[in-house]
């Protein structure tokens, strides 16, 4: 039963993520955190972090990670299978249609309308990640309980990314190191 749930969840993730990269992130959050509770918001954020630092698409990484956590290696295989099945069918179909008609106007039109929505949904997922980082998952936004160290790290990272165009992987490593340093200083 759990295998079927994993399969169907990741089937939806594979079927509805358009645009690559972060497009799958809000869908994974919806299925894995909100709907099934397979990961906590912290674990989900860790998963996105790990995905950033390793090769491979976020959706495949998530399928492996969640599958193993919920049902071991067979779970990971089933989830990964569900995740790529829509691609296999749809890509082959579109390739055939395309080779026949040489026209992708409709598909491009649909994508043009999806792109703004995808940006908005990524933003929404990003906001829940930041809320979790700054105030802990499920906690109310309360200025007195803000994790100011993480807010400062966030601002530093943003400047490094936007102003200095630093590589995202290094920015994330630096963020981790800064937090460790802050914890050691606070502990000392």
């Amino acid at each position, binding site marked *: 039963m759990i295998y079927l749930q994993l399969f169907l969840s990741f089937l939806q993730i594979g079927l509805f993520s358009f645009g690559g990269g972060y497009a799958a992130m809000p869908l994974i959050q919806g299925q894995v955190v909100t709907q099934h509770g397979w990961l906590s918001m912290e674990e989900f954020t860790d998963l996105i972090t790990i995905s950033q630092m390793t090769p*491979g698409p976020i959706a495949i990484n998530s399928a492996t990670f969640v599958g193993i956590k919920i049902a071991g290696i067979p779970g990971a295989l089933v989830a990964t299978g569900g995740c790529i099945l829509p691609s296999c069918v749809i890509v082959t179909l579109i390739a055939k249609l395309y080779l026949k008609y040489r026209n992708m106007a409709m598909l491009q039109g649909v994508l043009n309308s999806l792109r703004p929505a995808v940006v908005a949904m990524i933003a929404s997922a990003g906001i829940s990640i930041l809320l979790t980082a700054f105030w802990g998952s499920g906690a109310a936004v309360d200025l007195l309980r803000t994790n100011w160290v993480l807010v400062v790290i966030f601002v530093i990272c943003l400047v490094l990314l936007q102003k200095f165009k630093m590589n995202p992987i290094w920015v994330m490593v630096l963020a981790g190191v800064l*937090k460790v340093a802050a914890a050691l200083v606070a502990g000392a």
Partner: protein
Amino acid sequence: MKRKGEILRKLFWSTLYLSAFTFGGGYVIVTLMKKKFVDQYHWIEENEMLDLIAIAQSSPGAIAVNGAIVVGYKLAGMIGAFTAIVATIIPPFVIISLISVFYNAFRENFLVSQMLEGMQAGVGAVIAAVVYEMGAGIVHGKNPMSLLIMAGAFVAACIFEVNVVYVVIVCGLIGVVRTMAGKRRAGK
């Protein structure tokens, strides 16, 4: 027949290699695929490869997987697609499986948990930068409908917590209507 075996073997190893060493997501990997299969092996013509990449990018699912499917299918039919998919999935599957073992063992460690907590702020910054870049592209497009879709999708996903699958379906349908209306206008 020997030639097909040769192609499959090369296809397997080159997609495995690309998948294992490409950081930075699907858009990067399809570019590297073009270099490998067009410029190095001369298996696919440049124009056709650009079309294949367009198909991989406009279909749902991970772009790296979609790219593997179109290239594999083009070179050796269904077996080719299957070979390329398996080769693309093996590296992230193995890497994430190993990491999830360590994750469970080390998440409670003080330094590791501090590191990951700092990285939550880092990944939040990376996502914020991506959203800013993508969002700015859409705002500069100055298409009122796209702006409306972006705002509407954000309100739906972030404030009303609508399942993102529905947001994708609705915006996709809007895209269909827009494209058909555009065609009719062009026809008159």
